[in-house]
């Protein structure tokens, strides 16, 4: 059966939750040679910054790839409490997304494309799923444990809590802290249940050593970083020698003048075009398991 490329809304289970996504089938046929799962960043959802994941998925679809962009738990239209979503949960979700794509169309090869922390999630999945043959990593970050301590301290902003303190009068705030008022909606909305204030673990940390697992990745990887993305450049400084040391076939591209999310349309176009040509470069893909 042949037809034109179609996109349709889909759902699939992960960790007891229902995740939502958009599945793209190149020509209506169930058997497609290659598939791409697109992974969004920490606070975003399946469309990505300025819809870059939508546009990329549609371009890939036009070139014959099956595509799945989806919402991680607690994000977008998926089930789950977003204030509890952690990196390991995101990795589990993405692994299940890969399984779902395999089940929906008999893809021979699966690539993961992730942006920002979505790229880190993709690295996490690649380290445990030998069926992932390609990784496209846009603006990958250093994992939390790899960040310099100074930077970690400086970036902690308890945005919502301070905001709430300003919204309540001093007297009410003091009473709230003493437990004399019932925890109101705004407080709970911003910090979750009281136990959630100090969970003792950073949601962006994994319980596993993801880099060690990634060391045995035998597919190929494309890392793209904007030169004006300080965190991304730090990620590149870590992954470049790591890939070399462990014999991971990786290419590292820089987009001159680009920021973390490629907000300049010229930069976005450069990233997408490079990604497409890299994925379509069949000659580079020989030898993957």
């Amino acid at each position, binding site marked *: 059966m042949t037809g034109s490329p179609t*996109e349709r*809304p889909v*759902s699939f*289970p992960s960790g*007891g*939750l*229902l995740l*939502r996504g*958009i599945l793209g089938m190149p020509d209506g046929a169930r058997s497609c040679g290659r598939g791409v799962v697109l992974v969004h960043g920490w*606070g*975003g*959802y*399946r*469309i*990505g*910054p*300025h*819809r*870059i994941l*939508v546009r990329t998925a549609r371009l890939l679809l036009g070139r014959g790839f099956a595509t799945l962009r989806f919402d991680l738990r*607690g*994000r*977008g*239209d998926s*089930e789950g*409490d*977003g*204030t*509890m*979503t952690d990196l390991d949960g995101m990795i589990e979700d993405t692994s299940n997304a890969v399984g779902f794509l395999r089940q929906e169309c008999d893809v021979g090869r699966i690539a993961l494309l992730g942006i920002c922390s979505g790229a880190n999630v993709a690295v996490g999945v690649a380290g445990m799923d030998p069926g992932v043959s390609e990784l496209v990593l846009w603006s990958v970050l250093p994992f939390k444990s790899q960040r310099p301590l100074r930077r970690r301290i400086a970036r902690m*902003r308890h*945005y*919502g809590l301070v*905001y*709430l303190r*300003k*919204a*309540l009068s001093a007297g009410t705030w003091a009473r709230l802290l003493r437990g004399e008022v019932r925890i109101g*909606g*705004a407080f*709970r*909305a*911003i910090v*979750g249940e009281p136990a959630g204030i100090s969970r003792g673990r950073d949601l962006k940390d994994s319980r596993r050593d993801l880099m060690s697992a990634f060391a045995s990745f035998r597919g190929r990887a494309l890392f793209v970083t904007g030169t*004006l993305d300080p965190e991304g450049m730090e990620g590149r400084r870590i992954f470049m020698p790591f890939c070399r040391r462990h014999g991971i076939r990786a290419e590292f591209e820089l987009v001159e*003048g680009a*920021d973390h*999310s*490629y*907000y*300049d*349309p010229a930069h*976005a176009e450069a990233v997408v075009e490079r990604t497409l040509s890299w994925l379509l470069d069949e000659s580079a893909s020989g030898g993957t398991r």
Partner: protein
Amino acid sequence: MSLSDEVFFVLSGGLKLLAVFQPANDRARFGILMVHPFGEEKKCAHRAFVETARALARHGVASLRFDLRGCGDSEGDFGEATVRSWIEDVRAAWGVLRERLPDAPLGLLGLRLGATLASRACRDVGPVRALVMWQPIVEGRAEISGELRRLLVQEMVSRGRAGRRRDEIQSRLERGEGTVALDGYPLTPAMYRDICAMRLSDDVPAWPACAGIVQFGRSSPRIEAFAREARCRLGIVALPPIWVRSDFIPGPSAGDLLAREAVLPFLDAE
């Protein structure tokens, strides 16, 4: 695993718009059409909309949220959208909500430009029994100027200097030359013109009796004066601006807060 909402496409002007209908937990006593904000603000605010819809369902209010053409997962090119085509999309989505809820009163909820679009749409859909505007754009021209200023600050942070001025950018747009990227979304001369022409006060005569404005965090003398002139309710919800890139990830409690303080009081006011 339990999500009771349904995902499908709404047709508008030959384009498929992605939509999600969230039924009420019991019989729907009200239905709300949710209109998202402009550009990247939509991505930032999306989850807050979702959590609000789910919380509203628990209070007997069904909702339909959808992606305007050229936005989210809908078809269409953002660069070809106009305010008029977006109002057409609001009408199409309203029609689908009415099909789903033939007997319930219906209202509109919008955020930022979505609120201004919702306000404008009151003339075209109907009858609208409630209009809830979250941080609406009151004067399109002033808003665009602020957005262009934000763009210049972004350029300064990226490249060291802004390199251009707002009046230069605006002149070019007014002459129909070129497009400006706001967080990667093209602001075309046509859209620039459309947004500059938008004034919330123009729509007041078409508003339902139950019309209200909600500001995030704090109000301003300007919005207070507007609400007084328009004789609509003004509320403040103690949350950070959900349409701005930030560390704040809304969870079910945020949805509950938004439903209880920023939607329901405006529906029950009759």
